[in-house]
């Protein structure tokens, strides 16, 4: 079984004045390709910190993190940016669409930083918009869409660069139960296509969609259950 990612004794400290916060302590996880993981735990337990490290938005204080075969923990900003542009997809709790861009432009945005866009890319972005049910809203701006629609745009955007890895920090935190199911259905489908998905959630119903639940407490793994 090939590993999509591997975390070895990963730690992240935040220094606040004289005090040091151990946001993550000595975390080791093997993530096989195509895994579908829910990260759970009380607020402040380090879930977001972990996801930021996995998303190459941050560097660990100590320990090592491999993505595919590459050691990410030693990379510089440029290399990390390239990895984000080519291999990762993000879905945020607060959608995080660019307000002045249209739906279509938001979906295409990651391609822009990957260094260009072919006709096929463009066609695929339109297909993605149709897949999330917004094929008729391509020219709308985020402000003209409901929360659920915005999150569907965000899901489509996370797929634009055809990433191996999807990272979602409480993607349904702002949604009602009906739209939550719509988004989860999309994530399930992405996992069925073979993509590795890691999502942070507080809700058991959301976690029930996944194959594996890792619980955190005070920056440490409390349990790691594969169903």
């Amino acid at each position, binding site marked *: 079984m090939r590993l999509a990612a591997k975390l070895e004794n990963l730690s992240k400290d935040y220094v606040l004045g004289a005090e040091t916060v151990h946001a993550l302590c000595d975390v080791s996880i093997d993530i096989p390709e195509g895994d579908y993981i829910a990260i759970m735990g009380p607020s402040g337990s380090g879930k977001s910190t972990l996801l930021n490290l996995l*998303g190459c*938005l941050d560097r660990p204080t100590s320990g090592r993190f491999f993505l595919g075969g590459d050691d990410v923990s030693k990379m510089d*900003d440029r290399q990390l940016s390239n990895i*984000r542009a080519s291999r990762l997809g993000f879905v945020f709790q607060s959608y995080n669409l660019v307000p002045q861009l249209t739906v279509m432009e938001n979906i295409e945005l990651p391609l*822009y930083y990957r*260094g*260009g*866009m072919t006709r096929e890319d463009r066609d695929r972005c339109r297909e993605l918009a149709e897949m999330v049910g917004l094929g008729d809203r391509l020219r709308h701006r985020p402000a003209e869409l409901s929360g659920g629609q915005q999150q569907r745009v965000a899901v489509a955007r996370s797929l634009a660069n055809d990433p191996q890895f999807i990272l979602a920090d409480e993607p349904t935190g702002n949604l009602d139960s009906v739209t939550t199911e719509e988004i989860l259905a999309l994530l399930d489908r992405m996992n069925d296509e073979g993509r590795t998905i890691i999502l942070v959630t507080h809700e058991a119903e959301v976690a029930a969609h996944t194959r594996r639940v890792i619980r955190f407490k005070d920056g440490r793994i409390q349990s790691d259950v594969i169903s």
Partner: protein
Amino acid sequence: MTFAWIRTWQLGVKSLLLHPLRSLLTILGIFIGVASVIWLLAIGEGISLKAQEQIESLGADNIIVRTIKPSADDENSSVAYGITREDLGRLEVIPTVLRAVPIRELRQRFYHNGHKVEGRLVGCTAEYAELTQLRVERGHFISEAESKSIENHCVLSAEVARRLFPLEDPLDQMIQVEQDVYKVVGVMKHRDATSGIGGSLAGQNFSNDIYVPIKTVEKRIGDMVILRRQGLFHAEIIELSQITLRIDDVDHVLETAEVVKRTLAKQHGKKQDYAVTVPLELLEQARATRLMFITFMGMIAAISLLVGGIGIMNIMLATVTERTREIGIRRALGAKQIDIVMQFLVETIVLSVVGGVVGVLVGLTCGPIVVFARERLEAWIPDTMGNLPDVVRSITPVIVPVSIPLAFGISVFIGVVFGLYPAIRAALMDPIEALRHE
């Protein structure tokens, strides 16, 4: 690659258009800066070109010696003053002097057939026409032969001819000056008045002149002038009003001027009754003044561009803060730091280029606008305008060609320099912090 670039520019323009008023006000700063660079330089150039032209028309290879009236409280004052025929003799023999052209000017009244003109009688030689760039309309100017004669011949300026002979042909007619009659042998073309250029040379108006051989003046009128002042008669004896020395080589002008000054000082002692004007010196002064002017204008322009640049920086810092979250999103989606720098830099470049282009266009209208404004003002408040110095009244801006690329280049440079800091600040933001920004 090209695709990414086009998108960057599109995006920059698009986000500027999201805040049209804000962008407009930002452009205004650069626009005013650029337009003022071009305007100030053009006006400065116009003034100094005019001054140089006037000085050059005196001839860079000339030295002009003029009689001036000593001040009344000068203890050496007497009825006889000014440069003399003896001075002329001494100056003529300086080896570097090609020739010395003397003139004698007198205020006189000219009559013909009931018409009267008050004007200037100029006793001169044949060379005077060439020296002052006077051109003949009809007949001829005082000839070489006439210069040495004492014949009662005269040449009229165009205006005197028109006023004394409104209906007749003046050639070969007689006019009366004091008790004598003179035969008109020529009429000159109109010559614009020259304006003063500093030194001892006041502006000259040629329109009420008549020209007579200098020997004739000496013989018929003499050196003595009787003036009536405060009811008393008052005599003055002046031999020559002016001597123009033509020097053999421009390189010899300054040293010859020294010799001339020394020669005259020896003759006149402490008596301040003459002045030596060296157009070449004035020309060099005018050039130095022009440089000073350009430096000064450049400083003013630099300050206005600086203010424009600070305006851009201010706006961009506000924009960056406002769009912190967007920066975080773009970073998460793979934007490198350089991508963020470019995104914001493109916006400042668009602002400064638009400001620069509009500034150049408005800068180019400088000439017509200034001339139009001057004409309007002259029609509206002629008295006030009349009191202004001649250089100001006759301002005709001359666009300095280099000022256009210069002003434009500086505006783009300012845009880049002042945009760089906000752009770098945006790029150095921590993506996670930026994403969390409300």
